């Protein structure tokens, strides 16, 4: 954070920090040009936000102790520090009235509007959203694509919890390719379509089978990365040789 002296059109310099009261900081700035002085006073909450960054305004004079912030901020007495912010707000903003009174839940029609005490539910309702971020008036479950009966049957055979991800991945591929209908062939092709936009020759796929199965997905990504680096769109036996050559250097 910086302050600007609008008269002199220059940044004010940080000068010092003082503690004008419990939980409060006074941060002093001066204009290097006209000499004007300015002090920013923080409330206890703002003071704690700064201290939880683990920094000292103006810089450290001694190295930090291990776990300085953790140890300094862990509560050793159940009520230590609590109520400090409420007291501050009470004094400065609410003119001595208890803070809680301004936050008390409203009754009658106001309360009935949301149907619950949660302040977020009204906002969510106004946005037309339900859980999961789907619009209550939207087209959940419908698709812009027509699915052939055998493709749909294959999709429906998948476990319910993976179906949405497969559907979305196949449809993303179909959208990219400009297809309107999703067939079994499109589903199969979508599996071979990598996010890098590279495809695999049959020979290269066969050589990938030499890699232990649990390491194969990582190997596939690594080879695709090498292909992309070299601007190659199809992974052939030659790309595999070049990749092997590259990794032999790590042996």
């Amino acid at each position, binding site marked *: 954070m910086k302050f600007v002296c609008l008269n002199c*059109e220059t940044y004010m310099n940080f000068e010092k920090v003082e503690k004008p009261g419990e939980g409060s900081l006074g941060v002093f700035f001066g204009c290097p040009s006209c000499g004007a002085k300015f002090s920013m006073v923080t409330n206890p909450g703002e003071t704690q936000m700064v201290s939880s960054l683990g920094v000292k305004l103006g810089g450290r004079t001694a190295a930090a102790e291990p776990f300085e912030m953790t140890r300094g901020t862990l509560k050793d007495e159940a009520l230590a520090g609590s109520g400090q912010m409420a007291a501050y707000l009470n004094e400065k903003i609410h003119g001595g009235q208890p803070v809680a009174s301004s936050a008390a839940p409203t009754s009658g029609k106001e309360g009935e509007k949301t149907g619950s005490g949660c302040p977020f539910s009204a906002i969510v309702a106004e946005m037309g959203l339900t859980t999961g971020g789907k619009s209550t008036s939207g087209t959940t479950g419908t698709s812009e694509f027509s699915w052939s009966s055998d493709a749909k049957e294959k999709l429906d055979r998948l476990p319910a919890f993976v179906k949405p991800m497969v559907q979305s991945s196949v449809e993303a591929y179909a959208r990219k390719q400009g297809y309107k209908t999703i067939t079994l062939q499109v589903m199969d092709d979508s599996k071979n379509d990598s996010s890098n936009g590279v495809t695999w020759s049959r020979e290269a796929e066969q050589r990938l089978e030499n890699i232990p199965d649990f390491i194969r997905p990582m190997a*596939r990504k690594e080879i695709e990365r090498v292909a992309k680096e070299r601007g190659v769109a199809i992974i052939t036996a030659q790309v595999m040789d070049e990749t092997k050559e590259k990794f032999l250097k790590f042996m």
Partner: protein
Amino acid sequence: MVPDKDLKTILGKLRYSDDAKVVQQITEQTKNVHARMAGIKHKLVVMSGKGGVGKSMTTVNLALAFARQGAKVGLLDVDLNGPCVPRMLGLHGQSLQMTPEGAIPPIGPLGIKVASMDFFLDEASPVRWKGPMDVSPVWLGLMEMNVIREFLADVIWGELDVLLADLPPGAAADKPPVIAGFIPDLAGAIVVTTPSEVASDVVQKSVTYARDMGIKVLGIVENMSEYRCPSCGEQNELFEGNTDAMCEVLDLPLLGRIPFDRKLARTFDKGAPLLDETYPTIQRYQEIAGRIRTLLDYKKVLADKL
């Protein structure tokens, strides 16, 4: 009265200086994390979108498995609000030893170095922060991230082959992938699930989010895959799910399956973990640790087998 001025024009002419030294200190904090972790060969996080799937049990057993295989291992319990690793390893009640050079972690079974929030807490005490903002979720988030930063920067890990971090539950808006992003040169994430559809659904989200954050997910461990009756020895499935299908969709290897093992779990509950490497469930952890090591050395495998 100062006439209205165009602030953008004024700022365009000025040169920023960090005279309160805040940027400098935050930069130094990052450098400290990097310097402290420079002696660690492989940094791994264990995560899951879902709570209660056995992340801590998996992390602790993988740490023990790596140690049995001769590796120097560190274990960081990043679950600030529910730390349980020290209790599982019989270290509850111990503490980090503070020195001017940093905090020395207690040593657990098989020489594993352990750091946990538990070392700062009294028996049965929850984590409570003092100060006026202790109930502010925004402040709590900031505070917890900086506590984790201190765990990374201030613990003297020394030379390690593997550091495993047990992350708290959560998928996206909450912190785990963000925490993982703090760790310099992270080798990857191990994701734990149970074969239940509910867990798989949430785990998929956490994998997607982790990948969005640029974290390499190494594979999935299926925990509580079955249950062996301690009386009759019959083995049954605890859930009806399909982790294989999830792994295929996510294009991730299934690193292994761990049965629900009451006998083994009880030893960790009592803080006296079973260490017998011939015990069947422990052998499964050994196999998973072996696969993880192969994954970490995948470049050699590619050079050899491709």
